[in-house]
């Protein structure tokens, strides 16, 4: 395998750009929603074969081991070419977690399956009555012989209907003094008897998530990650990765590309009031990049992400929403039109960034919760 980090930034960018532009299927470019597995399977396998599926993983586990600067280039070019978002929980969440908290057997079994596209993961954290207050979750896992038996229900589980596996937080010790104690982290095969799904449509009408029901679902004991009752620590470690991932500039960048295209097409660059607001957002986005690289650097140096990474998520998603709102405003009457519209020779889907940017301030810990975390753990303000 090549050492991508040895290439100059420009050469690396050229190579990535050419590949994404030429190889990513035309019909899925700039899809206004997440890709379903049947739509992106071929692309996933193509990337996998090329050794490009896990740009953020270390090379020893089949990743590209990119430096922060190169990783950012990779993501920028993904957005530029309009490469859709795949069911990527295995790549962004499970892989990094197993690398950090798993054991050798779990790494040896699951990591290659993720790289090969044989294991597609979803996240079973939230429950109907445990959202922001996740630690109040009630799904239970009870040991029985070589297995744990899981009962309960998870909700808002993204792409569960495409997943082969789910990682689950379940209560293993109801007598624990604090609600954060006595929670464990399990890996579960979705084909296990007792799992049923109900799909849920999102605000844009897409089947994006599910409620997952667990009725006496057995998962073998070796699928417990880390120590028993210590799942909260892992979940928190993973939240760091999730916040870094959500905090990446790549989704706001995509909205910015649309906004710039629309502004040119409509001649808005001659309107100083508009240019002032656009420039503010361009700077908000450029500066997000600076902050993002600071955290990616930390991860690359092997440092754990602390609670301060929350600020990246707050800023990234707030910026994304502001961008999506200016896009609608810039479209004038077209700002009410569903789907693609032809404006000044360009086809723009005005509303999809609006829809796509809404959940970013809700999931992964809502932005209000992130501000609570920052106030308490970073600014050390009293409660």
């Amino acid at each position, binding site marked *: 395998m090549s050492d991508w980090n040895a290439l100059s930034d420009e050469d690396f960018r050229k190579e990535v750009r050419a590949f994404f532009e030429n190889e990513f299927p035309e019909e899925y470019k700039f899809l206004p929603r997440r890709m379903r597995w049947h739509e992106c399977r071929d692309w996933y396998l193509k990337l996998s074969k090329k050794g490009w599926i896990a740009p953020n993983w270390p090379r020893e586990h089949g990743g590209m081991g990119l430096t922060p600067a190169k990783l950012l280039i990779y993501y920028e070019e993904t957005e530029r070419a309009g490469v859709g978002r795949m069911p990527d929980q295995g790549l962004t969440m499970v892989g990094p977690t197993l690398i950090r908290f798993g054991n050798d057997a779990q790494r040896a079994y699951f990591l290659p399956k993720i790289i090969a596209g044989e294991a597609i993961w979803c996240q079973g954290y939230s429950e109907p009555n445990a959202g922001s207050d996740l630690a109040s979750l009630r799904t239970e896992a009870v040991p029985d012989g070589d297995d744990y038996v899981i009962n309960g229900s998870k909700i808002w589980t993204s792409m569960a209907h495409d997943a082969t596996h789910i990682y689950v937080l379940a209560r293993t010790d109801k007598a624990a003094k604090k609600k954060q104690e006595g929670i464990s982290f399990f890996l579960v095969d979705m084909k296990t008897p007792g799992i049923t799904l109900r799909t849920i449509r999102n605000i844009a009408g897409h089947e994006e998530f599910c409620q997952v029901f667990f009725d006496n679902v057995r998962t073998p004991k070796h699928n417990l990650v880390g120590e028993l009752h210590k799942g909260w620590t892992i979940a928190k470690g993973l939240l760091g990765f999730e916040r870094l991932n959500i905090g990446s500039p790549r989704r706001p960048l995509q909205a910015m590309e649309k906004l710039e295209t629309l502004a040119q097409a409509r001649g808005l660059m001659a309107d100083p009031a508009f240019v*002032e607001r656009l420039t503010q957002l361009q700077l908000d986005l450029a*500066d997000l990049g600076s902050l993002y690289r600071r955290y990616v650097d930390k991860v690359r140096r092997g440092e754990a992400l602390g609670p301060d990474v929350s600020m990246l998520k707050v800023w990234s998603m707030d910026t994304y929403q502001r961008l999506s709102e200016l896009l609608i405003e810039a479209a004038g009457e077209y700002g009410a039109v569903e789907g693609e519209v032809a404006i000044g020779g360009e086809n723009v889907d005005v509303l999809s960034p609006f829809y796509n940017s809404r959940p970013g301030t809700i999931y992964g810990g809502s932005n209000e919760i992130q*501000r609570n975390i920052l106030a308490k753990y970073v*600014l050390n303000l009293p409660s």
Partner: protein
Amino acid sequence: MNEHGMDHGALLAQSVGDFVQHGADLPRVRALAQGRAEFDAAQWRQLAELGWLGVLVPESCGGLGLGLAEAAIVAEGLGRALTPEPYTAVAVLAARTLEGAAASPLREELLAGLAAGSRLPVLAWQEQPDDFGGLQLATTAMPFEGGFRVSGEKSFVVGAAAADGYVVSALAGGELQLLWIPRDAGGCSTAAQPLADGRSYGRLALRDVVVPREHLLASGAAARAALDRALDHAATVTAAELCGVMKRAHEMSLDYMKTRVQFGKPIGSFQALQHRAVDLHIQQELADAVLREVVAELDAGPDPAARARAASRAKSRCAEAALAITRAAIQFHGAIGFTEDCDVGLYAKRAMTLSAWLGNGRAHRARYARLSAPAAREAA
């Protein structure tokens, strides 16, 4: 790295911190409003002895020959302490301009003196507000056998209160010239325009000032290049100074929120204040992250267009963040924040003067937009 695992940047930051000693300068800063001098010669000598005035001055001229990274660390530390002396105006703006001038005995003498603290040159390039590059230039330099006769007016000259002379921009036959004019040159008069934070802008009136040919520092494209680079570098180091101002001001707010009790609880326990403090902290960290990247980018010597964009990015973010943080600090402190005795007011006013100088947030956003326009991007 030394044995404590600190790199030289951290060590430098520590020695700047030790030098300004927590809050020691504040009574001095407060006294400025009562008409005390904004320049303390003893303080300046110490800055020179520590080598900080010469951070950017080439070693051949007695300086340290380091980069903006180090200058930014010094400026951030001085910003935290609200040190009023014109560090950035002299040690960055004037030093970089002189560095970019053609080799001459005068250039070497001024640079060496600047680093040693014995000479205090400042740049007088601006005549109109919102003219960062000094392009609206009406000052003229009429050539004669022995040199030039310079006439015109300059505004917004930071450091003029203590300067012993000016690097003045002027047009001769449509060409930009940078000329050295000693403060006491015949026909040169300096008036002070008081600023919110007790410092002042100098306003220069130049009436037929005779400038000998040896005092010509640079002309034409070389003058333009030296000036533009110096301005971008000074705007960036001013952004660092603003970082110091905002960080200390926000610390003061957070300390107060932990101790001030209302409704039987510290006010910092109220979510409305917590979330506001967090949003400001995010602005502070964005400012810090941008500043570090821009400083590294500028030290790598990019092309002028990239340099200008980067500098504008740093100045606009740091200016706006410092204003937001220091203004909120007044609100977080309640009525006491509105008093003359409360230090947050000093920070708010310094944020105002540093934001306004060398282009405010809006001006740099507009400049960034101009430089980012498709035509400019292709040209770059």
